[in-house]
């Protein structure tokens, strides 16, 4: 379980997170909704210790990430997979090398086992026989899938998704949403999805945290969010749905 309590973070004079609080339950997908530039990606980096909060605590399985030293952070990161917004594939390596990099460094597996893991991970994300391709020859959707394959290579307990459907066409985005759901149902992974894509959010999310101006407006289930009487939440949901319906038609 992940407990995010009263998190504050600022860059220079700009406070991006101002007292964010919500919980992430095991084996569920928690979606963090909010406008672009609202600090959602920063929140993911705080969870995994890539950034340190100015105040507050983030407990992962009972331990506060903000107080961990580098050794403890390294150990923590084995529990996580992270799908970055642009996939962040290592562009000097092939797809297979990207996926196997952590396996070669952190396990004593033989080549045959590593090759099987690469094939399995690619098969799960719906890509086969692309191990030898370079990231530059992949489409946006394929990069996200390879990024996800890399994220699950070490069989993490948690996966963090940073805007997984941004920049993708609707069909490809739906494919990514399906994969996110399969991570939960097939692999039992707990996920945090940060997005401003309201349609995808409602497809993948079990619980939601709506952020606005760096604060938590509301947390709840899909039904609670959709039927919320909170003015700001309604405004955000309605405007986002309108925008997306316009794009889909």
């Amino acid at each position, binding site marked *: 379980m992940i407990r995010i309590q009263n998190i504050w973070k600022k860059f220079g004079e700009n406070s991006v997170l101002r007292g964010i609080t919500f919980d992430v339950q095991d084996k569920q997908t928690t979606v963090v909704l909010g406008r672009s530039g609202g600090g959602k990606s920063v929140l993911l980096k705080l969870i995994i210790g890539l950034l340190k909060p100015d105040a507050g605590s983030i407990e992962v399985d009972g331990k506060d990430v903000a107080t961990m030293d580098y050794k403890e952070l390294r150990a923590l990161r084995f529990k996580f997979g992270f799908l*970055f917004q642009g996939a962040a594939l290592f562009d000097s390596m092939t797809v297979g090398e990207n996926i196997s990099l952590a396996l070669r*460094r952190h396990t004593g597996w033989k080549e045959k086992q590593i090759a099987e893991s690469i094939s399995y991970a690619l098969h799960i994300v719906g890509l086969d026989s692309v191990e030898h391709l370079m990231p530059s020859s992949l489409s946006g959707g394929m990069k996200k899938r390879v990024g996800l394959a890399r994220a699950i290579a070490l069989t993490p307990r948690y996966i963090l998704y940073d805007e997984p459907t941004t920049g993708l066409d609707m069909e490809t985005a739906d494919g990514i949403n399906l994969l996110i759901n399969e991570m939960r149902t097939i692999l039992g992974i707990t996920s945090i999805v940060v997005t401003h894509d309201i349609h995808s959010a409602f497809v993948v999310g079990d619980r939601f945290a709506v952020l606005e101006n760096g604060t938590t407006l509301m947390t709840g289930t899909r039904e609670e969010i959709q039927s919320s009487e909170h003015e700001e939440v309604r405004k955000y949901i309605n405007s986002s749905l309108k925008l997306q319906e316009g794009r889909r038609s």
Partner: protein
Amino acid sequence: MVTIGNDSIPIVVFVGAFVGMVTAVQSAYQLYDWIPRAVVGSLVVKSVLLELMPLMTAMVLAGKVGATITAELGTMRVTEQIDALEALAFDSVSFLITPRVLAGILMFPVLIIFGDLVAILGGMVGAVAVAKIPATAFITGMKSSFETWDAVFGIIKGTFFGFTITSVACYHGYFVEGGSEGVGKATMGTVVLTCLTVVVLDFILASVLL
């Protein structure tokens, strides 16, 4: 090692050849008629080993190697590849920076040795073909002035220059901010700063070690 070392050999050889040739030609030009022509050989070997090849190699590689490292690491930073490495439980400094700095420390002296040899050969070609100095005179002058410490000093310079250029380049690239514009600024900053630092370091090493 291959990128910093092997791939830099052609440019170092090219620069070395012309440095040697111009040193010989300009030395011959400046000598009074009554000074033995063998002095040209002495001037070439002393200048090349002590100063010209270590400094010219460093200047050229500040651009080639320094800029490449900064651009590479800077691009990795702005595309979140460094964050991805950290998220995969890698120590990004050990993985990205240490090998590059070590390669600089090891390969710069090797490149300077290559450059020294080519520059001295180039000096002989310049002396014989352009300044019309007999090869035997050039070689006599070269032999009379050669001291092992001169070559070692150049190699020591190479070690320091290699460390300086690669570590400055890595620092600028690793901590880049501001997207592609930031990468461009960092790359330019690396080239300028390493060139200036090398010149100052050159003076300090000469003052301390000679």
